[in-house]
């Protein structure tokens, strides 16, 4: 697993938890759910205090206090400025990232299964992954204009690369011993793929989707700034250029909340799909 141990405090109290879970539990100290929540709340309080202090120290008009940001956010929501922008951004984000997940997993898995396909296209995929996707924006605008399609494509191009590369790596990392076992039971290619290769690659798929979702959100804002200005990116441009820092920061907070929400949702999916690791 690239980023996060799957066995966490949630395994506490299970009978035959593996050693890693036992270690986490011991090292966690305040590692139960309530303890984590309290620690996180405390850290949030610290951030707010530092933020307030910085806002007081900064020259007027360059920064805004958490209270001012909350007030501005509330006003924007109440006056109906926030909801349409949020909806526009989420549409671009979810469409682009969603297509990237489907296409990326399929293409990455296909590359992992077919040596010929992998040998043929992996150099192009890697080259594309290393090229700053912003470079394609003028081309995309020429081809698709400034509307929704162009924005979705920009998000897609950013999000799809880590999904492809991780799915490819995950399928290639399939356990050869388990594959041989499956073949020895008479399983054909499809059955080996569905029961052995793909389930084993799930941690890779999720790691790729997690990175892709983050890049997708970044590219959503990039797309909204570079094409027809719209959505949350549009609000950032609007308030940023007029030094309305409270509103500007309120939009930033909304973006952070979207990022946190997506990350948490993926964590729950991962926990559900990988519950077999918890020795239940």
């Amino acid at each position: 697993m690239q980023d996060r141990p799957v066995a966490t405090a949630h395994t506490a109290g299970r009978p035959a938890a593996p050693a890693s879970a036992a270690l986490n539990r011991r090292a966690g100290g305040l590692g139960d759910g309530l303890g984590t929540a309290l620690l996180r709340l405390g850290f949030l309080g610290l951030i707010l205090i530092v933020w307030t202090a910085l806002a007081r120290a900064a020259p007027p008009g360059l920064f805004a206090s958490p209270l001012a940001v909350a007030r501005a956010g509330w006003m924007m929501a109440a006056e109906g400025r926030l909801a349409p922008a949020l909806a526009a951004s989420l549409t671009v984000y979810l469409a682009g990232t969603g297509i990237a997940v489907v296409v990326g997993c399929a293409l990455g898995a296909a590359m992992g299964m077919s040596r010929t396909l992998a040998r043929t296209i992996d150099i192009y995929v890697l080259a594309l992954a290393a090229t700053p996707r912003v470079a394609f924006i003028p081309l995309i605008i020429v081809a698709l204009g400034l509307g929704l399609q162009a924005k979705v494509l920009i998000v897609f191009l950013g999000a799809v690369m880590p999904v492809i590369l991780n799915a490819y790596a995950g399928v290639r990392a399939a356990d050869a011993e388990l594959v041989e076992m499956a073949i020895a039971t008479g399983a054909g290619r499809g059955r080996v793929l569905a029961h052995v290769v793909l389930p084993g690659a799930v941690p890779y798929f999720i790691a790729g989707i997690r990175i892709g979702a983050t890049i997708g959100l970044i590219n959503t804002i990039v797309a909204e700034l570079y094409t027809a200005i719209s959505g949350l990116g549009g609000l950032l441009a609007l308030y940023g250029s007029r030094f309305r820092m409270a509103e500007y920061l309120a939009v930033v907070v909304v973006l952070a909340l979207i990022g946190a929400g997506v990350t948490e949702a993926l964590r729950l999916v991962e926990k559900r799909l990988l519950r077999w690791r918890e020795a239940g």
Partner: protein
Amino acid sequence: MTARLTLAGVSLAFAGAPVVQGIDLSVARGEVLVILGPSGCGKTSLLRLMAGLIRPDAGQVTLSGAPPRPGEGAAMVFQSYRLLPWKTVAQNVAFALPGRPAAEREARVAEVLRLVGLARVAGSFPAALSGGMKQRVALARALAPRPDFLLMDEPFAALDAQARELMQAELLRLVGATGGPGVVFVTHSVDEALVLGDRVVVLSPRPGRIVARIDVPFPVPRWQADPHDHPAYAELRHRLWQLLRDAVLKDPASDFHRPEG
């Protein structure tokens, strides 16, 4: 007709290097044949040939008259268990029963899990089981499709001494039952060979050739009478040791040296 697994003049090479040469073997359903040999003598390759996973370069492998095909007639049990960690115990066993009606599959899974004494952990994931339990799940998976032969590749080598003895007795009980499958059991343990085998063949180091065939005279069923106490046990054990030792010492690639230089 009793099912029979036969190797006639079988040779196999990997990348030009011979692995096994001129192997003649025959096992009938209900019989336990042990293949005893040092590491790297091609024991595992023989099992893969018998399972139909690979084809010989020369000679013939037949299962009841036809070349073996994976999943048809023979089931493998591996040293490393090879359970699918994302499937429960019951799902792992059911994996060996594709394409059957759900009710029939569930009934057979429950039946073999009862047979190996694991009915109560049917819903557990492998990560929650001990090594001995995992190997019993693997055994249940192999038995589920009612194969004519079990092909077992040092299946108990990773278990502690106690679990190993219990599993040996368990295996003899399971295959000794009426209509039990034939077993080809690969091991490098002389004791395991004598406890389990009706017949033992000894292989030389790579390229593996058969250097001895021995009929084990202990009374059956052997899971009831401990063969260790049989007068012939010590003598046979010594003979097998000698054969194995000579084979290893004759091997130019061996790290061991003859005591007399």
